[in-house]
């Protein structure tokens, strides 16, 4: 591990922590513009976090230590996930410890813990949310894994740093298998980040909630950590999408100063991605819950077809 590696890793962690709520605020802004209403200020998520941290945490009477530990665990998982996806630079020592498969496992770990915490309180809302979250997860996780496999077959590696370096360095080439993987990845990110058409992040009706039902019982600093973890998850997914499908502009291991150029490139790409997400959300309607497995099955099968197309066409 070199000095530049350590610095770029630290920079990436700090950047993820700082930028993630901004990305959520930007997506809300774009959504408001498209829906012809005035938006909350861009920094609203930060104000929300500050408010929640200041508040007292109210916990159900019979909640177990698992319930209280879960926000920290989920936060830790999402932070680790954001720090192994190359955003500014591919010189990240932590990518040696966790590759693409471990990244998927990391998301699964967070999902399992938050479902268990939801079941801990023992009300019908929590178990409803847990059941739905695991339902979405059991199809989204293999689909995401297959998307990473498509990229791995092209770059002959599962390490995210190697994948980004290989994809960024090929001469301008179009990979049909990545087209399939791209569509599948979009569907999976919509499902995993609790966006329309899978879940409405602004809903108040308990029967339509998935993500909101899981965190119904949390308040105060626990809720703040979970909200931060959710925006970190969105940030991680966006960066993963950018790293796989638009990898140009990321600094290399031997050129740490390129990070100065990489930062505005990243901001630009994230802004475009956020706007695209807002457009997708505005154009779609929320699906019935039992259409969601079909939706995700489509993503899964598209990703598998992407694998097959890669083997057929050799690209």
């Amino acid at each position, binding site marked *: 591990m070199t000095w530049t590696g350590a610095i770029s890793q630290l920079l990436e962690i700090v950047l993820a922590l700082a930028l993630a709520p901004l990305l959520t605020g930007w997506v809300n802004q774009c959504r408001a513009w498209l829906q012809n209403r005035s938006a909350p200020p861009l920094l609203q998520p930060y104000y929300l976090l500050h408010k929640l941290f200041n508040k007292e945490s109210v916990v159900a009477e019979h909640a177990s230590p698992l319930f209280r530990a879960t926000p920290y665990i989920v936060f830790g998982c999402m932070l680790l996930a954001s720090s192994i996806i190359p955003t500014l630079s591919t010189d990240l020592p932590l990518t040696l410890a966790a590759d693409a498969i471990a990244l998927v496992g990391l998301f699964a770990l967070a999902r399992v813990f938050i479902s268990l915490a939801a079941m801990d309180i023992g009300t019908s809302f929590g178990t409803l949310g847990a059941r739905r979250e695991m339902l979405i997860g059991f199809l989204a996780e293999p689909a995401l894994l297959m998307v990473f496999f498509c990229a791995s077959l092209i770059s002959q590696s599962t390490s995210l740093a190697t994948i980004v370096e290989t994809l960024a360095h090929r001469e301008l*080439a179009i990979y*049909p298998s990545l087209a399939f993987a791209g569509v599948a990845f979009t569907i999976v990110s919509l499902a995993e980040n609790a966006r329309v058409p899978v879940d409405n992040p602004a809903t108040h009706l308990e029967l339509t909630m998935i993500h909101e039902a899981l965190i119904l019982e949390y308040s105060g600093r626990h809720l703040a950590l979970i909200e931060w973890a959710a925006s970190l998850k969105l940030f991680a997914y966006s960066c993963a999408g950018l790293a796989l499908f638009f990898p140009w502009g990321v600094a290399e291991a031997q050129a740490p100063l390129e990070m100065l150029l990489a930062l505005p490139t990243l901001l630009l790409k994230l802004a475009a991605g956020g706007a695209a997400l807002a457009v997708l959300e505005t154009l779609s309607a929320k699906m019935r819950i039992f259409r969601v497995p079909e939706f995700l099955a*489509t993503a899964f*099968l598209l990703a598998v077809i992407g694998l097959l197309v890669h083997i057929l*066409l050799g*690209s």
Partner: protein
Amino acid sequence: MSPLLAQLINLLGAILLMLAFAMISQRRVLSLVHLFTMQGAILVVATAVVGYATNQPHLFVSAALTLALKVVLIPIMLHRVIDRLEVRWDTEPLINIPTTMLIGILLVIFAFNLGLPIARFSSTIARGTLGIALACVLLSFMMMITRAKAIPQVVGFLSMENGLFFAATSATYGMPMVVELGIALDVLIGVLILGVFMFQIREQFDSLDIRHLERLKED
């Protein structure tokens, strides 16, 4: 420049396959027609690219014909039929959609396997896409089998023809002009006749559900 064009053709073939797959999982008839229109547009672009890359002007004519027929004429006719029959939704297909998609994957594997050895003997720029084209044909055929209403079946038939067209373009640089014009005319007439047929079915059974046609069997 050539490798980039070859990859572009591969990409267009992949998008064609994606659209064929999307058609299987669609329930709304209107979206099916939109997807079919998009498929026709992609086909036009693909034919034009192959024509440009290999300097074969007759492919441009072919592309223009496809544009006129599959992107303009036939979708207009389908929309009119849909408006007059007031069809909006499909009933549940004969086997449920996830199972259909699973069978679709198996068909894709089968088609890719067929395409591999044939592709090795071909010398065209887009030989890798023969497997994709075969897969499109098989997927559309399956869509025809598993749908319960008449219009998705018609769309399936048309998209099968799209797949065949793409196969011809990628393997042998298009068919002789005479054959193409003949096929185009056949398809046009076919759609007209099917349109009339659909009205007749509706008159007879008050519904476009083809399962009612089973009543016509000898008992």
